[in-house]
């Protein structure tokens, strides 16, 4: 009797568990699936089959048009340039800073840590008015360089904490042993520490790349010439400028998703480290 009840409870529990899991999976995937679906729906079927689960005939036409007849390849390239340069700069600068925070004890260290922490919780909308003006006076509006400088600064604090946590994970003994064996600190750094931190640097690179790839507001504010637009800005102005071409817009969105998803796949195993480093320290 008791065994029967517990078995029934277990089956019910199992149904509940898988039901809940399925609900989360559908909630996470449905919007992305829908974008993909509209992007392969031919223009002629959009109004008759706009809300069916899959169009009766699918087409790559929207993707071809986006790649051949619009400025999106240019926007895509601009976004790649901005994101890659930002990610590389941040990783180098944050590795140096994270190394200092992990391996040295010095006066003012706590102040530095608190300052980094404050800038990380700092709402960026605060600096929108002054940055808009300062960048204008420096002649850095309408330039990818201006965006790269801003994005690099915005990502430094988080990346430093992340790199510090990776350096903290490497036993100090390794470095000391190398130094006893006659290496200078910089040699120990080059031969022992950097090779061991490479995965951490990869993770930082990925996080910063995704952050720069996603940024919209500063890019929208600072960039107006077509040749310098990032993908986010291009997509948004595309919506404003043309009578909405749904299929092309969604095809462009799916293309913009690809780098983010690739990096995400690569970053999966660092997610927990990264977010806990960011959340606990920031």
């Amino acid at each position, binding site marked *: 009797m008791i065994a029967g009840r517990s078995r029934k409870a277990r089956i019910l529990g199992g149904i509940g*568990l*898988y039901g*809940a*899991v399925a609900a989360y999976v559908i909630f*996470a*995937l449905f919007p*992305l699936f*829908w*974008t993909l679906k*509209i992007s392969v729906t031919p223009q002629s079927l959009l109004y008759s089959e706009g*809300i069916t689960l899959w169009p009766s005939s699918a087409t790559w036409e929207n993707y071809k048009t986006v790649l051949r007849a619009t400025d999106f390849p240019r926007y895509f390239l601009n976004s790649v340039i901005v994101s890659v340069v930002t990610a590389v700069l941040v990783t180098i*600068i*944050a590795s*140096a*800073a994270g*190394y*200092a925070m992990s391996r*040295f004890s*010095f006066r003012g*260290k706590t102040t530095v840590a608190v*300052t*980094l922490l404050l800038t990380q*919780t700092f*709402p*960026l*909308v605060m*600096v*929108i*008015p*002054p940055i*808009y003006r*300062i960048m204008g006076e420096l002649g850095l509006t309408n330039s990818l360089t201006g965006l790269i*400088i*801003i994005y*690099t*600064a915005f990502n*430094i604090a988080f990346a430093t904490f992340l790199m510090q946590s990776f350096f903290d994970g490497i036993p100090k003994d390794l470095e000391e042993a190398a130094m006893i064996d006659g290496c*200078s*600190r*910089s040699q120990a750094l080059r031969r022992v520490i950097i090779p061991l931190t490479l995965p951490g640097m990869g993770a930082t690179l990925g996080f910063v790349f*995704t952050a720069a*790839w*996603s940024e*919209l*507001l500063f890019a929208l*504010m600072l960039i107006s010439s077509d040749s310098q637009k990032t993908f*986010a800005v291009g*997509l948004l102005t595309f919506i404003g400028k043309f009578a909405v071409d*749904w299929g092309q*817009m*969604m095809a462009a*969105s799916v293309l913009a*998703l690809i780098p*983010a*998803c690739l990096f*995400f796949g690569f970053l999966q195993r660092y*997610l*927990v480290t990264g*977010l806990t480093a960011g*959340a606990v320290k920031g």
Partner: protein
Amino acid sequence: MAMQSTAALTPQQERRASSKRRFSAAFEPWLYLSPALVLLLVVLVVPLIFGVSYSFRKFSAFKSEYVGLAQYRALLSDPVLGQALMNTLWWTVASLFLQFFLGLGLALLLDRPFFGKKVVQAIVFLPWAVPSFLSGLTWAWLFNPIVGPLPHWLFALGLKSEPTNILSDPATAMWGPIIANVWFGVPFFAITLLAALKSIPSELHEAAAIDGANPWQRFVKVTLPFLAPTIAITVMLRTIWIATFADLIYVMTEGGPAGSTNTVATYIYVSAFKTLDKGYASAVAVLLLALLILYAVVLIRIRRSLVRYS
């Protein structure tokens, strides 16, 4: 570096080298930190100071003049700002509440073994990787009756009298960005809470189970106290983040219709960028910063008093 031939140095040179080493030991960390600190100073701290000073000025096309507290006085009688503050509160509380509880639920699910867990985990965390402007656009499209199914589903369920866009109705428009924000933000809570759950020693659960505690009692007496520190810090950070997060709303509604989704963050952005009123935008930004600092201080006080009494 020059230190490689230390063995061949005279005592005098060696003394000089050691004092140099002492000097460099104090100097070295600052050398490594300097690029990061300089950048933060130039791109964040200096603009912040400028921003505060802008809030005492009025900007017109070619010049700006000092106007004292006039911008702050204007804040007091701005009906749009009053509405934006209420919208910010609703946007933040509703988004945070749903993100947190759905995130906690997901973390608890992923803490249990089940078939296909690795794949499921990759899928449910995916929205976090989607750029926020794309999250906003995707949801805006889902709510659009031409290409999106949601209005028709809401109509079929009897929740709406006709399949129209909820984003174009001031009474319901805020739900659009809130739902997009929840979709986008659930993985953050799920990931951080999952990390915290994994750090709970399993002996504790076993001991509680042996003592006859039911699952709910185990959750309240064992799991929650362990999660509490993570919850406190993530909720605080997320509140600040959501309250100042303008992308989704800007992309989906630009604050409309009729200002019904205008939050303080979108208001700052629109006043600085579209109406070019940088002085006023800065005053609003200072107000927002003051409110957020007040919130953080209150929350930290509450947390401290809870720790003291427990």
